[in-house]
């Protein structure tokens, strides 16, 4: 039993907020915590402010796997033994949340920085974790509960910079939680979307992206189960408010699901039940943390399994061999929210994804967002002919290929600067490989020597790709991944 491999070096012990035997840190690496996180998402989405932010800004319906991966990576960074890693991630999340504000459908303002809303996010994670242990057949004792709660409070305080709005004691927490469920949560659009659409329509994970039929068959079986398990574990008052009838057998099913994952994490070898293992199975290019991959061998194995699976799964020949058309490019790459048109949330999602993957510092992130915002204004001015604030696939396809865009050049330059670490104004073999591996999740590996790209050549390549003029596996993976 050697699940804890990330103890801090001696010099940093004092800076390790959570302690070397942190419960939260262990949870962030356990696959079954995924069940708790999924359940917590429903509880979060039922909060009016969070629900509104989710609907307006998140791409979780179109790209749930990407969101899951980003959430896990972010949580892992926030509990890292190294204080610098934690601080950097908290600052990044705050910048990201600061960009999510607006008014919901009923005209109520919302902001992702609202302390009450952020406290609720952490509260749902804590409560869902406690539920996971309880339904898994091993309830936490009093001391462990206190400890876990203290760690979650520290988790929130880290982001807020102060204490955060979670009650100081566990006893008060349960009162707060019940009150929130009874009085604050609503039947929001986001909660309904998760329960009724997300599970049923969840797109294929990267490993099966090109095998929609296989995925659809598996999903038809698994989706109702996932819904039943999640619904079965929700608090009864919320279930009623969401208009969810008691599904016969759902409680047993929920129990069984949590119990089996609990048993699995006790009985199976640690490596099998780690979150990274499961995610690597779904996404062969998943890298837990660039440069520090303790699962290289395992990842290689799962990458091979993914390759074999793709090779053995029947594939339509003619349809698959058609080059990606402008419309396909629009649907797969540009329309991040999957709502059929291009608007600011789509571009914001792209900027967020790039900033996260490349781990840009504040200056780089600001430059990137400014460039994307400028690009959006350019697009609106040039392509939004009916002035409805959105650009349809047809509007884009008709004009984008001939557009010249100074803002998009700046986007390319930020990418280039983030990659050109030795500042020699060219991306050499090593930098090119790193860019593809980290940002675009593509290892050029054995397929040949990567080209050395000058700034001009890189910008040209990026512009061609964004105009849908040519196919680039690296960028496709970055943006199109579900």
């Amino acid at each position: 039993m050697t699940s804890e491999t990330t103890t801090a070096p001696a010099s940093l012990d004092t800076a390790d907020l959570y302690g070397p035997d942190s419960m939260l840190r262990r949870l962030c690496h356990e696959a079954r915590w995924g069940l708790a996180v999924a359940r917590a998402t429903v509880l979060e989405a039922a909060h009016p402010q969070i629900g509104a932010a989710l609907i307006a800004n998140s791409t979780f319906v179109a790209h749930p796997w990407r969101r899951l991966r980003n959430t896990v990576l972010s949580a892992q960074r926030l509990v890292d033994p190294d204080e610098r890693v934690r601080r950097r991630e908290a600052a990044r999340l705050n910048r990201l949340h600061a960009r999510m504000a607006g008014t919901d459908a009923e005209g109520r303002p919302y902001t992702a920085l609202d302390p009450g809303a952020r406290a609720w996010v952490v509260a749902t994670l804590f409560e869902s974790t406690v539920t996971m242990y309880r339904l898994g057949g091993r309830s936490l004792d009093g001391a462990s509960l206190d400890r876990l709660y203290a760690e979650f409070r520290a988790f929130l305080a880290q982001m807020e910079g102060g204490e955060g709005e979670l009650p100081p004691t566990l006893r008060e927490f349960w009162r707060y939680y019940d009150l929130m469920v009874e009085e604050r949560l609503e039947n929001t659009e986001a909660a309904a979307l998760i329960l009724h659409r997300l599970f049923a329509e969840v797109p294929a994970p990267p490993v099966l992206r090109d095998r929609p039929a296989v995925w659809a068959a598996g999903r038809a079986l698994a989706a109702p189960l996932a819904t039943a398990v999640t619904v079965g574990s929700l608090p009864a008052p919320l279930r009623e408010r969401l208009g969810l009838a008691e599904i016969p057998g759902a409680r047993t099913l929920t129990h069984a699901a949590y119990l089996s994952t609990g048993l699995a994490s006790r009985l199976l070898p640690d490596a099998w039940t780690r979150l990274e293992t499961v995610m690597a199975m779904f996404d062969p290019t998943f890298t837990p943390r660039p440069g520090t991959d303790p699962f290289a061998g395992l990842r290689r194995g799962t990458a091979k399994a993914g390759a074999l699976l793709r090779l053995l799964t029947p594939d339509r020949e003619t349809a698959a061999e058609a080059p990606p058309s402008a419309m396909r490019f629009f649907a797969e790459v540009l329309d991040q929210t999957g709502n059929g048109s291009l608007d600011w949330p789509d571009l914001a999602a792209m900027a967020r994804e790039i900033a996260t993957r490349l781990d840009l510092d504040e200056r780089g992130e600001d430059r990137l967002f400014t460039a994307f915002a400028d690009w959006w204004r350019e697009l609106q001015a040039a392509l939004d002919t009916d002035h409805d604030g959105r650009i349809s696939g047809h509007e884009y396809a008709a004009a984008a290929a001939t557009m010249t865009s100074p803002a998009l050049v700046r986007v390319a330059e930020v990418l280039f600067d983030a990659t050109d670490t030795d500042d020699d104004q060219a991306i050499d073999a090593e930098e090119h490989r790193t860019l593809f591996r980290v940002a675009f999740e593509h290892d050029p590996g054995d397929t040949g020597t990567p080209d050395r790209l000058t700034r001009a050549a890189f910008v040209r390549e990026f512009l061609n790709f964004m105009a849908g003029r040519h196919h680039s596996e690296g960028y496709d993976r970055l943006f199109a991944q579900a």
Partner: protein
Amino acid sequence: MNERIVPRHVACVMDGNGRWAALRSLPRTAGHRAAEAAVIDVIEAAHAAGVEWLSLYAFSTENWRRPPAEVAFLMRLVRRAIRKHALSLHARGIRCRFLGVTDPRIPPPLARDIADLMMLTRDNRRMTLTVAFDHGGRRDIVEAARSLVRDRVPAEEITEETFARHLPHPDTPEVDLVIRTSGEQRISNFMLWHVAYAEWVFPLVLWPDFRAGHFRECLDLYRRRERRFGDVRVPTTTGDAS
């Protein structure tokens, strides 16, 4: 001892598909289709004989000039063959590699299948199968030269060894034996660097008719030549010429 010498690296220029089809009044594509059986037979025979490296010339950079319908057919055929045989190649411990494969005209699904096959078999060591696809020997040499310039290697440090390290798949040993079927006797821009000291045999049989027996005959021919010339061969290759 020489009786047991097996060339370490055998390469095949798979020539004669079009003529095979023409002799039967069939379209050229029928010749390509029939070639698949020969490919599988040769892989099996090489594997059984203990050949460590087998290279097959499947598609040259010049082949893009063929009629578009034929090119498209070849792309589909290769893709189908990869998917059909991936598992059995892997099960036999064969590492599969592709040499070339840089042209953007290669359909993305085929490129992905190629990448998958290489990924799947990358740790196999029993035999390495290199498929030259969209390959040009001169292009590889030019690329290696570019790579040297980019790395700012001083002129006096450029030797045959350092140069070879900049070729694609630099661990590929020199070719010991090239088999070109159908009686044609040309190099056709194939692995130019690696064939410098290779023995060549030119069986008259057209590639779709080439079978394991023909392959073994070629190995025999190589062995006899080794007897005659082995001791004067430049010992830079594999050390098998004793």
